[in-house]
């Protein structure tokens, strides 16, 4: 086989592989595109057989979702997501510091404990949480979700932030301790700026998980504290086959996380692996 035939063959294989990659990418993306397209249809076009491929886009469905009282749900989701993420960082960053830079004894036991709480099935604790929340009169209260989402994301944040702290060069810390800087000052003026990208990645993961959380929201909220996923479900059950409006709601609900994930693709991998993969 001459060099030119080999080069030709490699180019053809390359072309085939590229085409295959693109076909698979389109196939995986297609359901999202279909959901987005359906959101711009009229109801009769959304549930038609055969499917409607060409149509004049309308914003009616988005208008209906936004004007249909979705503001409360969005506000609740924003509080649950935002406050729990801030709490996770406030609790998790010092804890990660104590497991990496000036470590306590038995670091691996503590890490083991944190990760094991992620393995505890949520269903195993939902019953007492529900009953106790009922007795404390905090059912249908957004702060109950804030506390639970904080506990849900804290182990991930501890693991992630620890992996970022471990990358801080030792000399930097020595310099800070020679200067006699205390814990808070070392954290604030030396460490936090150095691990800022790590904090952003951790926050992104916490935002994704709490924004999308449904199980606690379904069981512990009713009308006042319900979040966006609950809104979608109630749209689905109460309004049955308003498919276009349902798609508009689902698209709007997913958009914040989709955009955040697109922008922060690099941080996503690290976060999903809890800091194990750089």
């Amino acid at each position: 086989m001459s060099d030119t035939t080999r080069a030709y063959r490699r180019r053809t294989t390359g072309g085939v592989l590229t085409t295959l990659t693109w076909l698979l990418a389109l196939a995986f993306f297609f359901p999202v595109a279909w959901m987005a397209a359906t959101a711009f249809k009229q109801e009769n076009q959304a549930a038609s057989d055969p499917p409607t491929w060409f149509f004049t886009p309308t914003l009616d469905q988005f208008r209906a979702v936004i004007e249909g009282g979705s503001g409360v749900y969005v506000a609740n989701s924003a509080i649950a997501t935002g406050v729990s993420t801030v709490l996770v960082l406030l609790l998790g960053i010092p804890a990660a510091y104590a497991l990496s830079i000036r470590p306590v004894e038995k670091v691996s036991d503590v890490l083991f404990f944190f990760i094991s709480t992620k393995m505890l099935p949520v269903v195993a604790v939902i019953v007492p949480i529900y009953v106790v929340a009922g007795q404390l009169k905090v059912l249908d209260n957004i702060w109950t979700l804030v506390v639970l989402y904080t506990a849900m994301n804290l182990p991930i944040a501890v693991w992630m932030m620890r992996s970022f702290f471990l990358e801080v060069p030792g000399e930097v810390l020595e310099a800070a301790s020679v200067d006699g800087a205390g814990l808070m000052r070392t954290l604030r003026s030396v460490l936090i700026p150095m691990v800022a990208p790590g904090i952003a990645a951790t926050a992104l993961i916490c935002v994704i998980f709490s924004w999308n959380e449904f199980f606690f929201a379904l069981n512990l909220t009713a009308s006042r504290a319900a979040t966006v996923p609950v809104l979608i479900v109630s749209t689905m059950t109460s309004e049955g086959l308003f498919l276009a409006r349902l798609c508009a709601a689902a698209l709007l609900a997913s958009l914040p996380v989709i955009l955040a994930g697109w922008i922060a693709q690099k941080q996503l991998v690290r976060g999903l692996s809890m800091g194990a993969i750089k």
Partner: protein
Amino acid sequence: MSTSTIDRLEGSRRAARAAAAERTISKAEGWRRRGPLLPALIFTVIVTQLPFLVTIWYSLRGQNLLRPGEDIFVGLSNYVDIAQDSTFRQTALNSVVITLGCVLVAMVLGIVLALLLDRPFLGRGVARTMLITPFLVMPVATSVLWSVALLNPTYGLLNWTLGLFGIEAVDWTSTYPIIAILMALVWQWTPFMMLLVLAGLQAQAKDVLEAASVDGAGPWRTFRSITLPHLRRYIELGVLLGVIYVVNTFDQIYLMTAGGPGTASANLPFYIYQRAFLGFDIGQAAAMGVVVVIATIIVASAALRLIFRSFEVKE
């Protein structure tokens, strides 16, 4: 008593005092180190461990929210009921099928996609962005999308596509409920696996691959003897994390099939939810929760050893 004895006594006393002082210092230092950790640790213990202890307590009682009078100590009878409950066994099996099915299929697809993405081509960034999107869609939205827009028997897109090839319409969510759920789950989790494997591929030493190619190893041989062993750690991590998340699947089952028909597609989280929130059978639901946790501990203690090796936890 001679002076030397006094000196010696004095000396040993001083040494003991110094040692004690050192101990207090290291004790203080120990607490200073523990300080930043404690808020997070205490918070996690209170919010995650206490409810579980309460679950154990409930599991020994006959509490049903509809019949307040029966809240009495019933010993292990809830557990005996579970052992005889064939639905519990079926949903446990469904949990295993759904979890393993989703994780394994998603991993195989993820490896294929990662290999395809790990080569330069036009628009690679865009293709990668499109491929990770399913993972970013809110699971509740995913469930709606699949059950209504794609799998609906009359106007769903999948049946329409199959119709082009002359295949009869299928009512996916009631005829093949577990397969329908697996479709949505695999679609959502494949990007997750792909991202982890892709990170592994990109961490591969390029000179080793070049050396293999110089030595005349073909692409398949290189993949099997170099790439796959290198990827092992990433694959293990992906499977482990995937299992942790997928075993708790609730949204898709709640929205796509409601566990039905009957309990044909219910997994343990969904079945426990039904017993607790639709049957108000607190004692039974709590006992099932305890059984699930024990099973999880058995599986997890093996898995955790793996994760620790993967993460290379350094003291």
